[in-house]
């Protein structure tokens, strides 16, 4: 896989058969490789049954595939199956921690540390928790190059009031890869728990949940070549065991009587109702797909495209790139603004050239405020992209400038 091997991997993605389609919005949701579609089809057409309780062979088959996929997904990020809780998306995973871990561990006068670059999904739950218990948020600033300061983290941690440090692994706007191991270590040393939002990291760079050491690590299937409807929460067993259940109902109980209920073992305690069975199996195929490519090669590929995109974009007059200057400091995405045109208009004109980019606040309104911007345009990369796609982007930006540039 080189930066120019566009067609080779693109062939694995049915949607890219669309003539001329340049998909640069994988940070919003990834396209799905054929193997993932096939896994969905295969499961639903040949192995479908509900899990957990079935005695007949088809149900045992479904159960076995579901469990194997969980184990595969867990192994892919260096986590234990029992510590791998299947949710509907990253947002639910964070909310699970907010609701189940939050009230027992954060109280009046306590604090939660976030970065200014968090996605709304890693802001609003904590804001709500703080409001509920009378705690406060402390915002780690991002500097002009999109970096947070461990020094400021130390300051925030110094008074011992911080109970949770929730930080994105990779910013979905700035692209910044945060030093999550250091963040986690400092949080732990100060007696605070940590949650890392890996939504933009997992399919793009080597992630080892165990090595990172966070108390909670979350990510989302649909951005990792998997289907919608599945997210992951990896939690440390001690914490998960001490936490009360969140959603309650079928499958997460041990016994229910007219009077009371006892709860099931991990991970089932946190998985109420029928889980996303087919989605789990399909995400298993997705991580298999990435493993097959080799995550280090994936990272090298996307880093090379990002470097190319940075150099090409920065050469455009009136274009400002947000975030770190170097590709190695970033995930595979670049947000930018053009002096002459609003991001929405940029995306619209690009869209007419079939260059698919996202425009808006990217669910990071506090960051936008900090940057003094209403919105940005974002191009994001995946394994199927090539430098050709960057060239298409740059070419189409020329059309934007042609329309909006003269005044």
């Amino acid at each position, binding site marked *: 896989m080189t930066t120019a091997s566009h067609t080779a991997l693109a062939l694995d993605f049915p949607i890219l058969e669309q003539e001329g389609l340049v998909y640069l919005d994988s940070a919003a949701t990834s396209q799905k490789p054929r193997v993932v579609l096939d896994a969905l089809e295969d499961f639903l057409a040949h192995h479908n049954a509900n899990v957990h309780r079935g005695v007949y062979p088809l149900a045992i088959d479904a159960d076995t595939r579901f469990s194997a996929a969980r184990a595969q997904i867990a192994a892919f990020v260096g986590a234990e199956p029992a510590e791998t809780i299947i949710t509907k998306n990253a947002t639910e995973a964070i909310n699970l921690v907010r609701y189940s871990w939050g009230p027992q561990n954060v109280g009046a006068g306590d604090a939660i540390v976030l970065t200014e670059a968090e996605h709304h999904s890693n802001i609003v739950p904590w804001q709500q928790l703080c409001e509920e218990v009378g705690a406060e948020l402390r915002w780690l600033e991002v500097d002009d190059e999109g970096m947070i300061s461990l020094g400021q983290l130390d300051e925030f941690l110094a008074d011992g009031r911080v109970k949770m440090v929730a930080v994105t692994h990779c910013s979905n706007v700035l692209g910044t890869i945060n030093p999550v191991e250091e963040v986690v270590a400092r949080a732990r040393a100060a007696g605070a728990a940590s949650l890392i939002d890996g939504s933009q990291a997992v399919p793009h760079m080597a992630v080892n949940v165990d090595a990172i050491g966070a108390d909670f690590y979350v990510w989302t299937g649909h951005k990792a070549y998997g289907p919608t409807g599945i997210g992951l929460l990896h939690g440390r067993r001690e914490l998960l065991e001490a936490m009360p259940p969140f959603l309650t109902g079928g499958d997460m109980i041990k016994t229910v009587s007219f009077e009371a209920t006892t709860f099931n073992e991990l991970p089932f305690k946190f998985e109420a109702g029928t889980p996303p069975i087919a989605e789990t199996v399909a995400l298993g195929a997705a991580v298999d797909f990435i493993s097959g490519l080799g995550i280090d090669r994936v990272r090298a590929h996307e880093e090379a495209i990002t470097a190319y995109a940075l150099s090409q974009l920065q050469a455009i007059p009136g274009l400002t790139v947000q975030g770190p200057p170097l590709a190695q400091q970033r995930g595979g995405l670049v947000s930018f603004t053009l002096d002459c*045109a*609003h*991001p*929405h*208009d940029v995306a*619209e*004109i690009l869209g*007419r050239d079939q260059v698919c980019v996202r*425009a*808006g*606040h990217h669910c990071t*309104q506090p960051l*936008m405020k900090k940057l003094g*911007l*209403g*919105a940005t345009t974002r191009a994001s990369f995946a394994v199927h992209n090539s430098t050709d796609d960057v060239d298409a982007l740059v070419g189409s930006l020329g*059309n934007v400038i*042609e*329309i*909006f540039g003269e*005044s």
Partner: protein
Amino acid sequence: MDDALYREEILEHYKRPHNFGPMENPDRESFDTNPLCGDELRVMLKVDDNDVVEEVRFEGHGCAISQASASMISDEIKGMKLDDLARLDRSAILDLLGIDISATRMKCALLSLKVLKSAAIGTLADWEPDTADAARPAGGAQL
């Protein structure tokens, strides 16, 4: 390139918006945002004793569609009674723009109308862009 969405008149309004800027002591005022794209728009009106719009100014930032819409409609409403302003529907804007607007951009196009109407009525108009445009298939929505 041929791009009907960004026809000359719209670009003209976007680059040199009419009635743009602050107003001192407005009689009516309203502000709102387009939550999905971060556009912000404030509208200020001066009205005479008969509730007829004498002057209109708007401020804010947004895309060409939302800014041009605001500029174009601002020219139209001078001399209009607040009651009539409050009764305007989406066609008022869409006719002025004279282009096809996708469901996503509809919110951009209609932001100025929403803010104007709420300034006229005195409260934020009952605006349900998401519910109407997004939860319902095209066609069901009315401003």
